């Protein structure tokens, strides 16, 4: 029982971070129709940004987070402006390729700036364990779950009900029509990238806290794919369900079965789910009428 509880907490916290990473991915996809292969790198940049503000610049924590967020948002906007805007209206596959190039570039920039070794920064989250139902539960993981839940909740509400949320979805549907109603497609795209970078910052910082801040953070980005597919590429709530499903599955597999399968477990699950629901659990069915 205590093992189960433990695995559940760890699974949920892994899942929460995955959901944060996936959130940015979904935002970008939904608004701009771009599959962002640099999502893992945004996570990486997020982790290093806090290192920069907190350790290198020695800012107090709160300020470090605020400045970090500003940097992340600026980065998102710059990427959109320099790299993606010129490609508005091009074949989505070409745009995918650009994000692959972007991933290589961002990764290399981190390496140039911070080297290939892990960097060390003081932990932000308290890591004393709490005892509950006979299990030793790590406080930091519990906090990760709470923080991620709040962030995801805010994003979901924003997307569903706010005027800007609707505008982002409108842009995703039909850019020309969005222009005719006065929505600035460029601003919407920039907003999507900024929000994606922001959520990646939160994810990267949390992940860095419970693991390490090193170039390896980027590898976590690959897991975003099964997450978003499970949830549905364009569903914000889907990322939460997808993230938690993948997090829990991987942890249960490695707790009760062969941990090696934890690596491909998510993919097998993904294929099975796609066979039943081709647009993921919550994805929008593409409207095809003739």
């Amino acid at each position, binding site marked *: 029982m205590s093992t189960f509880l433990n695995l559940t907490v760890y699974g949920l916290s892994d899942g929460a971070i995955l959901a944060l990473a996936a959130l940015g991915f979904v935002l970008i996809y939904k608004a701009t129709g771009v599959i962002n292969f640099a999502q893992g790198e945004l996570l990486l940049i997020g982790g290093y940004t806090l290192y920069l503000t907190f350790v290198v610049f020695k800012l107090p924590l709160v300020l470090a987070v605020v400045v970090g967020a500003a940097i992340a948002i600026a980065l998102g906007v710059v990427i959109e402006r320099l790299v993606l805007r010129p490609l508005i*209206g091009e074949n989505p596959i070409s745009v995918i390729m650009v994000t692959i190039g972007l991933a290589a570039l961002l990764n290399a920039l981190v390496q140039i700036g911070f080297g290939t070794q892990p960097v060390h920064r003081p932990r932000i989250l308290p890591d004393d364990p709490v005892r509950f139902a006979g299990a030793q539960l790590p406080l930091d993981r519990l906090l990760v779950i709470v923080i991620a839940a709040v962030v995801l909740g805010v994003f979901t509400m924003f997307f569903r009900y706010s005027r800007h949320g609707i505008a982002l979805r*409108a842009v995703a549907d*039909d850019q*020309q029509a969005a222009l*005719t109603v*006065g929505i600035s497609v460029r601003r919407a795209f920039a907003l999507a990238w900024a929000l994606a970078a922001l959520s990646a910052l939160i994810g990267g910082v949390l992940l860095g806290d419970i693991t390490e801040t090193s170039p390896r953070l980027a590898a976590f980005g690959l897991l975003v794919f099964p997450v978003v597919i499970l949830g549905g590429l364009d569903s914000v709530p889907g990322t939460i369900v997808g993230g938690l499903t993948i997090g829990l599955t991987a942890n249960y597999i490695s707790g009760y079965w062969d941990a090696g399968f934890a690596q491909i477990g998510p993919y097998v699950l993904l294929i099975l789910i796609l066979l039943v629901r081709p647009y993921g659990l919550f994805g929008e069915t593409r409207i095809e*009428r003739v």
Partner: protein
Amino acid sequence: MTDVSLHPAEAPRQGSPALLDIRGIEVIYDEVILVLRGLSLAVPEGKVVALLGSNGAGKSTTLKAVSGLLSTERGEVSDGSIVFDGKNITHFDPARRVRAGLSLCMEGRHVFEHLTVHENLVAGAYGRRGGNAEDFDLVYSFFPKLADLRTRVAGYLSGGEQQMLAIGRALMARPRLLMLDEPSLGLAPLLVQEIFGYIRNLNQETGLTVLVIEQNARRALEIADHGYILEQGRIVIDGTAAELSENPDVKEFYLGMGDAGRKNYRDVKHYRRRKRWL
């Protein structure tokens, strides 16, 4: 025939000062395809103007140039200027034109497929912070059917329903000039009748200025004050609606009338005719 000017660019502009004044614009796509070749037209405040022309003449391109959509299709205005309400808007970005009071209802409806009807309308009022209850009431009063469909996903509506939504959405921006690109496309006769009725009402009740592209020339000339005929990127004829309806060429090619009323489609023969103005 006599009253119809064959050279509109040189013709004196009649009536009140134009709300929209297009002065000799040239549009090219892809840096090679020249579509509009020095097109000029004027839409006076408070009037309904119809723009007619066969497929590919450049009607939609004209509206795209006015609303600033060309850049999304690798097109650009390479010469001439577009003046709206006294301001040269040729190089404004689209959002700014909407805020200035230009609203375009695109050909082929272009509703936001995955949004509900209501969300479509909210998006329509984006430039005005989402619109207020009054705006929604106005739209729902013009299109009562939309009120029933409020929560339906727009992509699954039938063509006519989508067309109403598209016009409703354009109205949410409270435009001064509403541009409609083939609003009757694919609509049932009763609806075409209704939609043109709405347009007339809008114009008469709210003083909204309208520029409408239409293939159904008869309907368009019924509600329009003024008409332009566009062929191969140039205005070839313009005049008041009444003048145009009497023009024999317009009658033959746009109104489908033989010498004695409407021609039966079974009587059409295989031969190529030539429009006299070309």
